[in-house]
């Protein structure tokens, strides 16, 4: 504070000194310059007068050719110490007499001088030189030449310099004293204000107020504005604190873990839930300390993705396990979004970790439930499928018993029916023999098997099935899951189709259309059933959404989509509900390469 006080008053003093010094200097210099010019003119005038006196005294010596007399006249110049040289020339520019006396005659100094010029003067080797015509009664009788040193000018300059410096020194001392006295009027209120401002910024205490000066000048306005600003800051500060408190309360009360970090990825804040779950301390979590609660197996992938998000500013979303205080890992869905300022620069990252272990478990339970339901439905379907050949076998056995002559033929036929039953049983088993690892799957064959399971239903509804799935289209995957995908889509189509409806199933080699060239197989299931209303086209993939209130669980398509995603494939839906032209098409793409575990 002392430094500031010093510098402000110093500034004012220096300003005063500079202003008065410059003004004084300008005034003095111009005054002296004017005086010097006048003095120079006076000097020339004096010299001219001297020349005239010499000239008029030299008239008779010139006219009566008496150089001695002229020199006697010139000798009087001894009284003028600044006259260093003088000489008289005849009208024909011949040397006549000179001063100082007894010198060798010198040549006429100004060749181009003519009598009608009367007088001329110039500077020569630091001396004033003047030349003047001597005229007498209208006649030019000679020329006088006179030189004066600048001693007078120099002594004048010297005395001016002394005067100037004395005046400057005296004035500056006076200005110094005056400015010391007067600056208090100006600087005191400003310094008070600065003190207050320093107090505020040091203590972060926005309740203090600057003292009013009682004047109505700009400083008073500044004090008023400053106090107004303080009041506003105080209000905003408390509002901010309140908001901060609310945010902390909210952040600490949500079930998720939440955190914040700078644009560089250094995390600076975690909510209470984080510390409770991980059992860590803020010191352990500082910066990149969060890595300690990660599973070392997933950490590299997390770090890579997090660094990528920091670099691009794209939102971060990932599922990874975090170790709890009990040492057990739980699955968390982690989301982080960048918060940007007005200039679109990232100021902080805000992230949450949501425990999805329970969700995962319920999803798993749901899947099992749907599997059981599907099994039930399948069992009914199988019962129907098996019932027919069994009835046939029963009939054939009855016929064989009644007509022993034809036993061989009937037994052969019964054998065929039993083969069919064996085939159905075998196909059914495929649903339950889930391979641990991906194996080669013949899509054509799986389709044929699944369609055979629904043959009776198709026949019962007299559905016109057109299928073209070729032979030997193979991918790598889990056969049971692929079977279930197809079964679900075909069952849905059959449910949607009216009696004598039309179902087209087509499979072909294809490439994915998502930018990356991935070879695979595209299977289309098209029906001219009731169609899917536009508002339902996304909902049908959500669990528990169904339009078949009595028979559906609402899990079929959700499960199907899950299985396709697991195979890194895609499912597209196109549909029309235009009256008279309703139809639905599901396009399944399954890539050739093995799905990751």
């Amino acid at each position, binding site marked *: 504070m002392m430094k500031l006080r010093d510098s402000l008053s110093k500034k004012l003093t220096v300003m005063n000194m500079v202003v008065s010094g410059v003004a004084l200097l300008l005034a003095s210099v111009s005054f002296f310059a004017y005086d010097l010019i006048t003095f120079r003119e006076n000097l020339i005038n004096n010299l001219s007068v001297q020349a005239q006196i010499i000239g008029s*005294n030299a*008239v008779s*010596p*010139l006219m*009566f050719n008496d150089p001695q*007399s002229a020199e006697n006249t010139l000798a009087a110049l001894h009284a003028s110490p600044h006259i260093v040289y003088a000489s008289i020339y*005849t*009208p*024909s520019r011949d040397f006549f007499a000179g001063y100082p006396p007894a010198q060798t005659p010198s040549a006429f100094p100004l060749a181009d001088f003519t009598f009608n010029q009367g007088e001329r003067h110039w500077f020569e080797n630091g001396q004033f030189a003047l030349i003047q015509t001597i005229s007498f*009664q209208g006649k030019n009788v000679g020329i006088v030449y006179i030189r004066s040193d600048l001693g007078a000018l120099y002594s004048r300059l010297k005395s001016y310099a002394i005067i100037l410096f004395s005046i400057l020194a005296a004035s500056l001392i006076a200005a110094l004293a005056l400015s010391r006295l007067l600056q208090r009027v100006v600087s005191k209120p400003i310094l008070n204000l600065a003190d207050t401002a320093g107090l505020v910024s040091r203590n972060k205490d926005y309740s203090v107020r600057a003292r009013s000066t009682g004047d109505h000048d700009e400083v008073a306005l500044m004090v008023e504005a400053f106090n107004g600003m303080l009041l506003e800051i105080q209000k905003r500060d408390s509002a901010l604190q309140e908001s901060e408190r609310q945010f902390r309360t909210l952040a600490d009360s949500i079930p998720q873990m939440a955190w914040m970090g700078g644009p560089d990825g250094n995390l600076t804040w975690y909510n209470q839930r984080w510390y409770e779950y991980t059992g860590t301390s803020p010191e352990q979590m500082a910066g990149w300390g969060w890595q300690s609660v990660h599973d070392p197996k997933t950490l590299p992938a997390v770090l890579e993705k997090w660094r990528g998000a920091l670099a691009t500013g794209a939102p971060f979303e990932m599922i990874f396990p975090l170790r709890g205080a009990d040492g057990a890992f739980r699955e968390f869905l982690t989301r982080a979004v960048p918060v940007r300022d007005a200039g679109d620069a990232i100021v902080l990252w805000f992230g949450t970790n949501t425990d999805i272990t329970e969700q995962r478990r319920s999803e798993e339970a749901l899947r099992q439930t749907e599997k059981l339901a599907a099994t039930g439905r399948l069992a009914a379907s199988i019962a129907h499928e098996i019932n027919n050949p069994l009835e046939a076998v029963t009939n054939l056995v009855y016929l064989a018993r009644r007509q022993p002559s034809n036993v061989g033929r009937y037994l052969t036929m019964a054998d065929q029916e039993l083969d069919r039953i064996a085939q159905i049983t075998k196909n059914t088993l495929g649903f339950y023999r889930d391979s641990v690892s991906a194996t080669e799957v013949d899509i054509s064959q799986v389709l044929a098997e699944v369609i055979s399971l629904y043959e009776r239903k198709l026949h019962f509804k007299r559905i016109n099935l057109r299928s073209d799935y070729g032979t030997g289209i193979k991918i790598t995957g889990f056969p049971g899951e692929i079977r279930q995908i197809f079964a679900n889509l075909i069952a849905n189509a059959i449910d949607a189709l009216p009696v004598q409806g039309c179902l087209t199933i087509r499979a072909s080699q294809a490439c994915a259309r998502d930018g990356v060239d991935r070879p695979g197989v595209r299977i289309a299931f098209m029906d001219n059933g009731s169609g899917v209303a536009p508002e339902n086209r996304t909902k049908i993939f959500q669990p528990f959404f169904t339009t078949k209130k009595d028979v559906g669980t609402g899990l079929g398509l959700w499960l199907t989509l899950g299985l396709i995603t697991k195979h890194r494939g895609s499912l597209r839906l196109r549909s029309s509900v235009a009256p008279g032209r309703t139809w639905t098409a599901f396009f399944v793409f399954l890539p050739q390469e093995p799905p990751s575990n």
Partner: protein
Amino acid sequence: MSLVCLSGRAYFGRRTQALRWLAVFLAACAAASLNLAPVAAAQKSEPKEYEVKAVYLYNFGRFVQWPDRATKDDTFAVCVLGSDPFGAILDATVANETIDNRKLVARRVAKPGDAAGCRILFISSSETRRIEAILAALQNSSVLTVSDMPGFITYGGMIQFVLAENKVRFQVNLAATDKAGLTFSSQLLKVATYIKRESPAGNVNP
């Protein structure tokens, strides 16, 4: 006029030479637009004694004040009494010159009585024997008397030419001028080699 003729005849040999010099002198005068060229020219080619004297004679007129009773002619006459040593030089010197707006003329007079209308009277050394009578005759007139005869100022003459170091100089008799009512400029006295005054204490040599 007969005197002039006589003197002309006496100086016949020198006259042609003088005329030639005069031509040069006049040309120099015109070139320098200057009337006092003789002084200047004197240093280049030494002018003859009477050429200098003629110029001096005319110059005296500029440093002397005549009393009001002096003739109020339109002309300023420079006269020569006795045998004329100047010849045409004097006429050439005063030609086209004025003093106090009076035109200068050169005149030859035969006797002192004729000199009453003259401002300056040069008394030739041929009149040495009659000098006292001449001066006595001019006593009441305001004529500046000049001569180069020895002892002129002791006879009561006003300005006497002398030769000093081969230069033409002059002496002044203030007693005579005072009597005649003529006033000499101090400038003139300054260059005089000798000034005769009434009191012996007044003798000043500048």
